[in-house]
């Protein structure tokens, strides 16, 4: 529900508040604050914002290979011949950015657009799983890294994919889990600490 009531607030402002509050993580108060900021700002800045929003809708497509958002199809990563023959599977496009920033992976990506979560109504058919299997059969990568989230839907998706991928003769791996860099051991939760211990390595 919008906090800008029609009658008290001019209709165009109320409309803007309503549209902004549809965005994830934006409540009615933040939407009102943003709407008044846009109202006070220059027309040029408002036009740039509107143009940028329309631009992403008009110019961004899903890459038909990895299903990441891109300006071209196939995306620059999928069409880069210097990339290694490994596929890193992630849940969302934002995960690609996070992983690529590490500089530790020079292969390609595959975006599932979610994780299997029956309680949220998401089964395997809603994700880009069939496309991944076809891609692995065709590209024959030397490794598939299952970098889904470390929660129950992410782990269940990784286990399910592992079962589908192993018969294809590809090496399937999962990123190591454990303690965060810079964290104190005594403040780690028991699940993370347990995983860190079971995944320990010999020095």
């Amino acid at each position, binding site marked *: 529900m919008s906090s800008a009531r029609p009658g008290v607030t001019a209709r165009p402002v109320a409309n803007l508040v309503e549209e902004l509050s549809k965005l994830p993580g934006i409540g009615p108060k933040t939407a009102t604050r943003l709407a008044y900021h846009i109202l006070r700002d220059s027309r040029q800045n408002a036009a740039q914002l509107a143009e940028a929003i329309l631009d992403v809708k008009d110019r961004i497509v899903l890459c038909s290979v990895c299903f990441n958002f891109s300006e071209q199809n196939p995306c620059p990563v999928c069409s880069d011949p210097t990339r290694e023959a490994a596929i890193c599977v992630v849940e969302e496009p934002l995960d690609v950015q996070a992983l690529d920033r590490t500089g530790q992976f020079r292969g390609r990506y595959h975006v599932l657009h979610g994780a299997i979560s029956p309680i949220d109504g998401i089964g395997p058919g809603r994700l880009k799983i069939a496309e991944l299997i076809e891609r692995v059969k065709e590209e024959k990568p030397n490794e598939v890294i299952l970098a889904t989230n470390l929660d129950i839907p992410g782990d*269940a998706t990784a286990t399910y994919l592992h079962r589908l991928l192993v018969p294809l003769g590809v090496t399937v791996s999962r990123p190591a889990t454990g303690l965060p860099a810079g964290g104190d051991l005594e403040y780690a939760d028991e*699940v*993370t600490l347990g995983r860190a211990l079971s995944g320990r390595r010999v020095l």
Partner: protein
Amino acid sequence: MTAERDRNYRVEAIVLGRRDFGETDRIVTLFSRESGKISVIAKGARKPTARSGPATEYFARSRFMLARGRDLDVVTSAELLDRPTNLESSLARLAHASHMVELTGKLVQEGEVYPAVYDLLHLSLRHLGVAEDDLPLVRWFEVNVLTAVGYQLDFWSCAGCQRELGAEPNFLGLRTGGMLCPGCRTGDGQAMQISVNAQKYLRLLSREGIRSASSVRISPAVASEVERVMAAYTSSVLERDLTSLRVLREIREQTGSYSV
């Protein structure tokens, strides 16, 4: 001092659902023994360094310290007590756990307390994956949770004429909300026929404890019939279908198996 104590309270709760909020926060639906169903906000729970992360995971049973907020109460500390094991290894088991928490979440009302339902859910989640087959446990949970919130089905007598049901195919009257004998079924336009064996199994589920109900072996035909009957009854009670059951059916169709 008293006001300070009133602002903060402690609950033991099972996580029924969660959704991302803002940059790193999470809105978590809890089902607690002390306060029933409540929605709370766990600030920063999505950060990898958050201690509250595992405690706010789906199906986790955790101890929460909460501070009363204007809209939502805020998690100030959370400690994981236990969670069902090996859910990740079987999609069917994950769907069964999801079904149990979804059903609980839809049957209970905010502002009401249901200690018996809480104990039932806790016990059932703990037993998931212990027996060779999860299906008897799930059916046992359905029959008993419906009873605990007041939708008990009497599998022994007809809801129409009140006579004892004979050893013959009888009916579940979805409009009546009870079992019907062949003579009374015509009064209910949404009556589902139930075989003799399925009726025997449903009686057993409503009478026996979790251990003996879980250990009974039934034919796939009876298992499938009882699942259909219970799904129809819960949909009729809730006036909507359950999402996790739909996904469970999709998983079975895709994998061609009941236990993937």
